[in-house]
């Protein structure tokens, strides 16, 4: 018996096929679009900071200390007379960079070790997973602080500390998925036609398993911006004249009652940037894994 589709049925079918394509879901995903637009704007503002502001982010000007927000200084000035707006947009250069640079080493290390553990199993797996257990026995920030304490303060040492500590999350994620995925038929088929392990991992397994880690890395960027800010607050991150947002909040802490804008504005910058990356993460997870909605 042949089945004849009505024209309405055909239209619905065509629409469904279209909706299944990822590019269609990207365009329709509000979170992703808003998040990407926000990150794009923040990046552009940071990039064109010298054009957007005529003030110097570092130089002191004692004739205009602690001025409240006005037309000439939309976010006021700090205790050294520096324009807070200028410092915040220059700070975007530091904080965006910190967020993105921090996420790369743990992502790469975690993907490599997690894939090896999941794919080969056995001794390699137990060795890598015992490493994961070890790192996870420490509270995240405590281990970061201890490592920075040994290496010395500064953002570069924070990158190293994050690489040592944060890979475990990605390793666990990717291992779990490879364990499931490697049982599937297409992997057995690839093995049957004699594909090498590297090819099976790189061409077949990773493209199917890496999505969750990518989604996760977006939320991690927000986390690392917050971490860099916290380390600056503790005196272990960016050093004083730097307009890093956390350092700015710390500078403003003693002036919270008289000059609230000194801490409030860089804090808001962290929150807005964090929300932007979280929205991208949520959006990506909807687009790339429609079944999880």
């Amino acid at each position, binding site marked *: 018996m042949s089945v004849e589709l009505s024209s309405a049925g055909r239209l619905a079918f065509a629409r469904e096929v279209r909706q299944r394509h990822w590019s269609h879901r990207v365009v329709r995903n509000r979170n992703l679009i808003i998040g990407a637009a926000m990150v794009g704007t923040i990046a552009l503002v940071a990039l064109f900071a010298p054009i957007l502001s005529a003030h110097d982010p570092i130089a002191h000007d004692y004739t205009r200390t602690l001025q409240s927000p006005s037309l000439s200084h939309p976010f006021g000035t700090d205790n050294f007379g520096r324009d807070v707006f200028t410092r915040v947009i220059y700070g975007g250069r530091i904080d965006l960079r910190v967020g993105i640079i921090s996420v790369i080493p743990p992502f790469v290390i975690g993907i490599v070790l997690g894939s090896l553990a999941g794919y080969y199993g056995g001794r390699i797996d137990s060795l890598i997973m015992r490493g994961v*257990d070890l790192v996870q026995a*420490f509270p995240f920030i*405590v*281990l970061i602080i*201890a490592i920075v304490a040994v290496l010395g303060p500064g953002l570069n040492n924070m990158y190293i500390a994050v690489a040592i500590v944060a890979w475990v999350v990605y390793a666990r994620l990717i291992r779990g998925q490879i364990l499931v995925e490697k049982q599937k038929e297409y992997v057995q088929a690839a093995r049957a036609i004699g594909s090498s392990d590297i090819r099976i991992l790189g061409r077949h397994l990773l493209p199917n398993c890496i999505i969750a880690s990518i989604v996760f890395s977006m939320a991690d960027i927000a986390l690392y911006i917050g971490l860099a800010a*916290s380390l600056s*607050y503790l005196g272990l991150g960016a050093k004083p004249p730097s307009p890093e947002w956390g350092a700015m909040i710390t500078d403003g802490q003693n002036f919270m009652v008289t000059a609230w804008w000194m801490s409030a504005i860089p804090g808001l910058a962290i929150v807005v940037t964090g929300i932007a990356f*979280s929205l991208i993460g949520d959006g990506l997870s909807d687009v790339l894994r429609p079944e999880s909605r």
Partner: protein
Amino acid sequence: MSRGQYILRRLVQMIPVVLGITIILFFMIRLIPGDPVTAVLGERATDEAYERLRHNMGLDRPIWVQYLYYMRDLAQLELGDSLRYRVPITTLLWDRLQVSMSLAVYTVALTTLISLPLGIMAALKKNSLLDNIVRSALIVTMVMPSFWIGIILIIAFSIKLGLFPVSGYGNGFIENMQHLFLPSLTIALGLSPILIRALRSSILDALQADYVKTARAKGLPEKTVLTRHVLRNALIPYVTLLGIHTSFLMGGAVIVETVFALPGAGKLLIDGVRSRDYPVVQAATLMFALLVITVNLTTDIIYSFLDPRVRFN
């Protein structure tokens, strides 16, 4: 495998992790640039004094012997002396640990008070205005750095309204509770979003489950269905998650104790880092790690009691 065997096996599994932690911390302290003997004695010590202390600290022996000494001292709860305060670290840690533990318990209580009702309401009134407000507010508190939340709370509740003390720990139970409120709230505001999200989705899952349909079909009142069937099942992952996030809580304590000048173990760690008091850093880090694995073990055991479906293999 019985529950007893399961608990025993989890305890045995802890041994390599604890050993690993001690090895990491033992070697980490040796990676520090500079010489530990000079760190204690200063640059102007005589050669004789230098050699004597070097021998007393065991630094003239092979590294694995030094590690065994370190382990022997640990087993006797000898954590060495603080370079800065010149007192045994055990005494320093003990007082501060009590402050940190009170902070942790207070935070868990506040977090539960915040996340339980909000998570339940958000799930039962899915997609309502309330649900949307809760979910948007969560994204904001989740990305706010905890020290910034702390500073804002101090300004609002301590300086402007005068409701809570600005910093310190106070004397006596009632003062302690007053001093701990804002620090606990700071951590709770960061921890709650994760729990509310999880609770909301596990309640939504439970509402779809067959046993809930059955309960409704046999004519149970909606209230009974919710309390006996939905909540009871949805709360199991909530408890586990609360346990898993102990690590987050401890990390939060480190920063928040510094913001509120609470004399806890976290502040001891940060002060140790700032004054390069490495034995204190080593001991405090070890203690935080031991706390985390103990709580994780306890969570697993509680979980095995809460959920009869847990299989011990």
